[in-house]
């Protein structure tokens, strides 16, 4: 019997050479998309977080490189569009992206080159999961990681509209949506995320959310001592806080950082979609099975047509009635 892997508290340690049992199991799933009556998780884990300290980031893209290597994705060799942001956008082959913005600070007169690593924020209250109609295709573990389970993804793209940060991307070839997993496969065996491991300046650090928050506060103090009076932590409460969060030099102006939303919230459409969302979700218990089969046979992009949706609603209304309302709390 191999030992269970400890929960990682840093990304810089080297892997154990002993065989380890993964520490993330179904028992640690605290939320799952379109899954009514999900059993209470029996495995309670300490909340983890990745802190991205923009003031220490040198924009080297080692995180992008490590991400592509670890996840075995193949970002396209594109073109230069006149900026340093490459590829030009997140994609199903590039889960994280350094976004570069040049800003002339009117107070100091100084130019600032604000480089933000974009990617999934792992919201405590994940809009993607709420919007997802495919049972179990999006799960949240008790340590805070929000993970996509592509085997169960029906490729409807609802999670994309559910995300207040515009992160998930549809694969045009595999017809499933993907995003940063916070390296749940690495975390499960005691390792931190690949991006944090690769970051040469430790602008990206990983550990428990409490430790990362304490570290972030020391970084804010350092920045304030260097004249960044409005330095602060970006851990937006509109989505319940996030498990990927930032230290910003100008926390009062998050939009400077390539349009980081000032007060992200789950779209009212998704929140207000209680009936339909649930309806689609639950209908998908049936649909997903069909969808998966069709998907694998035809390999076409899966979208939920208006007909599908109304059919699903009817199905749900007829068969499940009030029971489905429970999922609204998710």
């Amino acid at each position: 019997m191999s030992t269970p892997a400890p929960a990682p508290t840093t990304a810089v340690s080297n892997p154990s050479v002993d065989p380890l049992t993964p520490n993330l199991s179904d028992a640690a799933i605290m939320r799952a998309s379109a899954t009514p009556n999900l059993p209470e998780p029996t495995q309670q884990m300490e909340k983890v977080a990745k802190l991205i300290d923009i003031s220490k980031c040198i924009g080297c893209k080692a995180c992008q490189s490590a991400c592509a290597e670890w996840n075995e994705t193949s970002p396209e060799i594109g073109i230069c569009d006149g900026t340093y942001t490459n590829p030009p956008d997140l994609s199903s082959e590039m889960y994280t992206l350094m976004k570069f913005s040049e800003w002339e600070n009117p107070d100091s007169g100084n130019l600032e080159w604000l480089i933000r690593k974009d990617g999934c924020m792992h919201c405590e209250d994940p809009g993607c999961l709420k919007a997802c109609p495919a049972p179990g295709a999006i799960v949240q573990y008790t340590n805070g990681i929000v993970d996509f389970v592509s085997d169960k993804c029906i490729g409807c793209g609802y999670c994309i509209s559910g995300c207040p940060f515009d992160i998930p991307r549809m694969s045009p070839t595999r017809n499933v949506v993907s995003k940063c997993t916070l390296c749940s496969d690495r975390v499960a065996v005691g390792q931190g995320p690949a991006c944090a491991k690769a970051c040469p300046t430790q602008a990206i650090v990983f550990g428990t959310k409490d430790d990362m928050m304490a570290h972030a506060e020391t970084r804010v103090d350092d920045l304030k001592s260097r004249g960044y009076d409005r330095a602060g932590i970006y851990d937006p409460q509109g989505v319940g806080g996030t498990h990927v969060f930032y230290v910003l030099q100008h926390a009062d102006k998050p939009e400077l950082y390539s349009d980081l939303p000032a007060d992200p919230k789950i779209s009212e459409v998704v929140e207000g979609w209680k009936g339909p969302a649930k309806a689609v979700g639950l209908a998908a218990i049936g649909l997903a099975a069909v969808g998966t089969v069709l998907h694998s046979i035809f390999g076409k992009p899966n979208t939920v047509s208006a007909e599908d949706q109304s059919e699903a609603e009817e199905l749900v209304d007829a068969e499940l009635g009030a029971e489905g309302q429970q999922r609204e709390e998710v």
Partner: protein
Amino acid sequence: MTNSWTDIKNTDLVIVMGGNAAEAHPCGFKWVTEAKAHRAAKLIVVDPRFTRTAAVSDYYAPIRPGTDIAWLMGMIRWMIENDKVHWEYVRNFTNAAFIVKDEFGWQDGLFTGYDPATRDYDRSSWDYVIGEDGFAETDPTLENPRCVWQLLKAHVDVYTPEMVERITGTPADQFLHIAEMIGETSAPDKTMTSMYALGWTQHTKGSQNIRGMAMLQLILGNIGVMGGGMNALRGHSNIQGLTDMGLMSNLLTGYLSMPTEAETDYATYMSTREFKPLRPNQTSYWQNYSKFMVSFMKAMWGDAAQAENDWAYHYLPKLDVPNYDVLRMFELMNQGQVNLYFCQGFNPLMAFPNRAKLTSALSKLKLLVTIDPLETETARFWENHGEYNDVDPASIQTEVLQLPSTCFAEDEGSLTNSGRWLQWHWPGVSPPGDAKLDTWIMSQIFLRVRELYRQEGGSFPDPILNLSWEYEDENDPTPQELAMEINGRALSAVSDPNNPGATLLEAGQQVKNFTELKDDGSTMCGCWIYSGCWNVDGNNMARRDNSDPSGLGVYQNWTWSWPVNRRILYNRASCDLEGRPYDADRMLIEWDGERWVGNDVPDIGVTSRPEEVGPFIMNPEGTSRLFARGMMRDGPFPTHMEPFESPMANVFNAEMRGNPVARVFESDVADLGTSEEFPYVGTSYRLTEHFHFWTKHNKVNAALQPQFFVEISEELAAEKGITKGGWVRVWNKRASIRAVAVVTKRIKPLICDGKPVHVVGVPLHWGFTGVAKKGYGPNSLTVFIGDANIETPESKAFLVNIEPAEEPVA
């Protein structure tokens, strides 16, 4: 580096000028972020562009490419004027007090002794007054108007903040702000580290750029201390090893120098190399030169090198020119004087200036042999790739042999990093296909050449036939065998000089380090400064003990550092004249009354008394040099010189173009442009997403920075009608290239001599092999002239014109 990467965490202030550490050395740059995070250190960046290093700096100032000397001399002037000088250090540890010959002077941008006909100086006046006792005369009060200090004060007087602004474009207020920050480090317990790279070397006065900062650091007392130093960030993982091992045409190993043809015998050669001390009691360590030289000759030729034959001195090639550097080799090649060229781990078609000339030169070879793990542009110089390599293969008769070699991850051996650490590594994977070790390839060539000499004789077969080749498998010397040969061993029993009658070394025993080397033929050593890397303790380069009892990032037992595992050079200078550390919290070494002890290997005889023996033991003065005597071709002090292609005339001498003593081949004169035709200043640089021309072969790197571009200011873009992401043509007399435009706030027009100067940034990394988009390198446009002392080409400053262009047809 005088210091080490890990030591940077000990600094109070980092200045990155002449480099772009965060982009070109991201892993090493982590030590800057450590210093910032844990010592509240500040970071200053001075660069023509607002780089990714500037993005995390505390203060940034722009500078016109090629004007660093004026900036640095201005900084020295400010320190002197504002009494920001570490006086005890300057008086005792520099040559400030030395008296210089009356004839020496500077006028109109030139030092005494200039001859325009030979483009060279008579340097005889650039020296000390030697007294009747044979020692240099000094004035410890620094008041003698002919002492180095007074001459330096006079020399830098012209570089006022206004003059600095006029020449460099750095606004005077920004310059003064930085001066205040730097001036604080003149306190004995404050220090600054200088991190630089090719931004300083790739100029026709590159060596003088570096000297300028070294002088500033000496005046501040920042050399030899923790967190200080002159830290050259090397551009390859083993480029420090390249120079250490003497892979320059004018060097043997360990900075022993190649003889010239005037030095016809060993005694003549040695007469100018064993420097006698210029002051009483000084070490002048090069007095041991003959021990290193004889041991080197024994490593080369074994029993064929004997006292009777001058240790086979006549086997050594003798230089008829100062240097067979790459520029000279390609010039000769282009003249049709080179038949065969070996190109090992080197892609000159993209790396050296004026690509059109390189292509022409390679086309005149009979045979080109490339040894490389990758498909280089050089190996494919004859292949047509549309506008990216527009050649006619049918007209090129050069035969090309490509020998695939292993890369660093596929072989075993050591790499010497910027901090002089020899770090042993092991193969991570097996080499693909027919790739072979470089050592195997070279052995095969050598063995075949030797066999030909055996069979056919030849005009001078002895150096080849007698070359020492004592490896278990002569076809495949192992890294272990080579490393042990480099370390050196006793060839016969060596007696102990401190214990008469006792034996220090048995025959065959590895020497402990270079202090055991002899000049009587009883020891051999491949590279004296590396001696100690593999001694009786085994392979010290393979050590992986990362304990750090000092807590100061010394890591004495992590791999091995030359010389003698010393981590910080000149560390004696971290202590005062009584041997007490200037900063007790950053103690490197200290004098305990009888000997030097501490956290690092002392850079001085362990029993050398602190009040007597100066810290700069390699120099016959025992001090460092603010005044370089005649040791540099272009001046004992740095003086402002414009780039050969510049938007403005030299303010001191409008007739003077570039560096007045830099070598210019006649064939290149016609290719030089002026600012009337080419009004914009081009400069070249690396990007963090790529490593030279390697990573464009890697899909991930190629995706992260896929396509060649040039960077210009919003102002220039508006003036020229160039749009962000649109195409431009950039050209001068040497080439016309096309690129995507990155239009940015990070480059701003500078005002120099009252006129705006626009900078066009041209990154390298693209070519016509690999998986990234095809593109050009800056070397299509750069000038074929090198530094006056070491011939590094002036790739950082050249003139271009620019206009909007059509996208090339794919």
